[in-house]
């Protein structure tokens, strides 16, 4: 007979439990099974009967096991007592569940434990060092009382906790005990386990722990600290929990991952994962080399899953992720730039920007006629249509889709007061938006247009009003976008400097030295034009000050030396 004994707690999938139990006994390890009292009597007796031909399988007294309740501890106590009593050779007792699956040959585990005769494997940490508690209760689970079920009577549970907090009710931890917590799946030596079970003060301890919340994670973990000569604070069972404290489940497709983990036992395995049971319970020869357990890969897999569930992918809107605007997460997937007024001032701004930054430059995406995609495309990545009606039906979806579909590639687009203004609030609140605005630049296009002056005047008044509204939105205190605003006069004073900061902002990785400036339109007579507007009672205050006699310098100075990135 083996020196390793197994305690198995079972409540469903009894056929799998039997299969695993027989796997243990085949290598000589006795198994004591505890079946939840909630399992029907007929099912239970049938189970007992089908195991009766194996003398190494015994059944302990049954208790009702509820999650977070005392029953699980009571079950472990009864089963462990029986195991120690009936199988005197047993040196280590391994606590497992019906959904546990041994991954390595049993003899390897037996040898591993034989090499560590005095070691108790039990994860046991003080409350201060534990970060994984569900419900935010750590020390309080030892000092409050918990008469209500967390799963079934959540409101009462929470109310009762609040009440105890408010009234400052505390109960004393029995003398000599330092609360410890850890995974409920342990492997203890006969010496330690029997010391716990035969402790003269066990009645006091039991009474105390019956009122502790989730005692199965703290009873043995705390008491082992009293008696063990050598604790290895880790569990030999690979068991990972999700963000709600439920164990992750292993399926057939985890086979390779489990093989490479070198862990002895894994929990919890889906009871219909036929391939896993088949692979790990039969072909012992193809098992792993002796090695220390190394669950790193599995850890990462589950950590990623947790992140997916709690944080998700920024800028993604889909059937199971729809964050509200004010939740503080990124509204879009990737940084992008918005330019307003630049195409009015520079005749070749778009090709120049493409050249200088290597990013994808679009025209006026929100133009009233249609979305002007770069390269005059009618459909963009992801099947995004240029139809203005589709876009205006849900402009936020349009922009988030565009940025999501092209994630990894910087997008730039032009904007202006003649475009759809509904999108402004969204842009202002998006921390990925870099918005550069030359206010009043729309006046240049009017100046160069061939319209009647009365129409120009009316249009100028309209555009100015729209732009003023827009600036009000962008300048609101809680705007998160990165916004730069120049008046037109400010900008034309030193255009290259401003353009350089913009390019720096974009920070493209393959920045070519910019040697050429974009071509500024001829502004001769612009000052006079503005004066004419003023004379007609329309004050274009957003352009800034231009003197009527055109004394400002419209010629962009050529670069003295090539532009270099730091």
């Amino acid at each position, binding site marked *: 007979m083996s020196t390793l004994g197994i305690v198995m707690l079972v409540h469903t999938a009894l056929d799998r439990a039997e299969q695993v139990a027989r796997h243990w006994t085949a290598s000589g390890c006795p198994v004591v099974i505890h079946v939840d009292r909630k399992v029907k009597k007929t099912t239970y007796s049938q189970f007992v009967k089908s195991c009766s031909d194996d003398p190494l399988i015994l059944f302990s007294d049954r208790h009702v096991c509820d999650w977070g309740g005392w029953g699980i501890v009571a079950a472990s106590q009864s089963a462990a007592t029986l195991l120690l009593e009936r199988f005197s050779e047993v040196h280590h007792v391994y606590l497992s569940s019906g959904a546990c699956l041994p991954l390595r040959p049993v003899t390897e585990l037996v040898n591993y434990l034989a090499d560590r005769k005095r070691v108790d494997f039990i994860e046991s940490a003080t409350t201060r060092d534990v970060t994984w508690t569900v419900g935010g209760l750590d020390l309080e689970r030892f000092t409050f009382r918990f008469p209500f079920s967390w799963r079934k009577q959540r409101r009462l549970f929470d109310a009762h906790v609040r009440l105890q907090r408010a009234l400052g009710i505390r109960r004393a931890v029995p003398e000599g005990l330092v609360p410890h917590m850890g995974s409920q799946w342990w492997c203890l030596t006969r010496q330690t386990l029997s010391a716990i079970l035969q402790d003269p003060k066990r009645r006091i301890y039991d009474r105390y722990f019956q009122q502790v919340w989730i005692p199965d994670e703290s009873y043995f973990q705390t008491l082992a600290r009293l008696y063990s000569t050598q604790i290895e604070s880790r569990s030999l069972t690979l068991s990972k929990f999700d963000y709600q404290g439920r164990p992750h489940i292993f399926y057939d497709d985890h086979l390779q991952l489990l093989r490479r983990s070198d862990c002895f036992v894994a929990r919890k395995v889906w009871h219909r994962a036929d391939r896993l049971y088949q692979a790990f319970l039969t072909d012992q020869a193809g098992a792993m080399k002796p090695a220390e357990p190394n669950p790193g890969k599995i850890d990462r897999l589950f950590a990623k899953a947790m992140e*997916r569930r709690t944080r998700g992918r920024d800028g993604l809107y889909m059937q*199971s992720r729809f*964050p509200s605007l004010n939740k503080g997460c990124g509204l879009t997937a990737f940084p992008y730039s918005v330019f307003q007024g630049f195409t009015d001032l520079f005749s070749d701004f778009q090709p120049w920007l493409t050249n200088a930054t290597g990013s994808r430059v679009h025209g006026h995406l929100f133009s009233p006629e249609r979305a002007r995609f770069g390269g005059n495309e009618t459909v963009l990545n992801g099947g995004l249509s240029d139809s203005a009606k589709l876009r205006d039906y849900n402009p936020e979806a349009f922009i988030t889709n565009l940025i999501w579909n092209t994630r990894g590639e910087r997008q730039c687009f032009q904007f202006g007061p003649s475009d759809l203004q509904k999108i402004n609030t969204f842009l202002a609140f998006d921390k990925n938006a870099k918005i550069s605005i030359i206010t009043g630049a729309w006046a240049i296009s009017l100046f160069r247009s061939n319209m009647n002056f009365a129409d120009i005047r009316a249009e100028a008044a309209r555009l100015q009003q729209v732009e003023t509204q827009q600036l009000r939105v962008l300048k609101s205190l809680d705007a998160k976008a990165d916004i730069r605003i120049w008046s037109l006069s400010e900008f034309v004073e030193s255009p290259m400097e401003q353009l350089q900061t913009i390019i720096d902002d974009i920070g493209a990785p393959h920045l070519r030295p910019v040697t050429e400036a974009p071509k500024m339109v001829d502004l001769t007579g612009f000052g006079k034009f503005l004066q004419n507007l003023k004379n007609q009672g329309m004050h274009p205050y957003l352009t800034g000050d231009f003197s009527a006699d055109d004394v400002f310098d419209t010629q962009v100075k050529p670069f003295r030396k090539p532009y270099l990135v730091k």
Partner: protein
Amino acid sequence: MRLRRKRRLLRCMRKRRELNVKQDATNVIQPDDILLMSVIRNEKIRLPYFLDYYRKLGVDHFLFVDNDSDDGSAEFLTQQPDVSVWNTQASYRRATFGVDWVNYLLRSYAHGHWVLTVDPDEFFIYPFCDTRPIRALTDWLDDTSVRSFGTMLIDMYPRGPIEETPYQEGQNPFEVAPWFDTGNYMISRNPTYGNLWIQGGPRSRVFFYETPSKAPALNKIPLVKWDRRYTYVSSTHALLPRGLNQVYEQNGGEKTSGALLHAKLLDTLGDKAHEELSRGQHYRQSDEYRAYAERLQDGPVFWNEWSEKFINWRQLEILGLMSKGNWA
């Protein structure tokens, strides 16, 4: 809302008289069987592959309402051992587009079961569906106390004009129509029922670009651990009580979700559109089918250079059209 739900339930009880049982095999349903519910009309050509697909996923029993088919659908279905069929000649529209019949049958046979309610041209995809049967998903949902599972309908289309590659009975429709749109879906929240309202995809792009608000809804909640108090309110887009529509996360995370591949844009669409148009039995006076019939005359091509060819669920996951959530 409670009243609305009760009214729906009463209505479905009234409408049960319209259903005549054709084949009742519901006595073989086991307590934890996974069921599938579907309303069909003249879908004979689709049924063999449909049954095959869902049997492989692990559906144990099928419930069909046959709305007066005359192409042998009913005869085909009654030959299947794991299928129960009800026949009705009543108006699809007056049964709230079939929802009343569905509600009645679910109430009668699906209480306590996981049940998948899909149209015969919808194919359910969920994370790990190539390695784990649907029961792995429902067991996990049970474990995590989730009662309903959200999906988005993804319209699939062929490379050329739809009549050029005819669909053959028994064939996987996505051999003919493997292409889809990856990133042009528009979402808003429906404040009445708390569900998301998703529109977009190729049908919006080609049929409804002038009238986007009329584009069909793509949000669906087809998989539910049914209770006799539950009701669908409009197709499978929304349920009552409203908590069941909360299949999405609002604080930034992603819940686990799937997709329904929609094999509608096949060569069968033209005939269907004309038939349905003349019957006028569909939502909003069959506006949708009117648009199809008009546009189909010019032989539209849905494909464009940004169309993506379907590979597997992982591809949809990466594209953000479904999510593993915390199921690993």
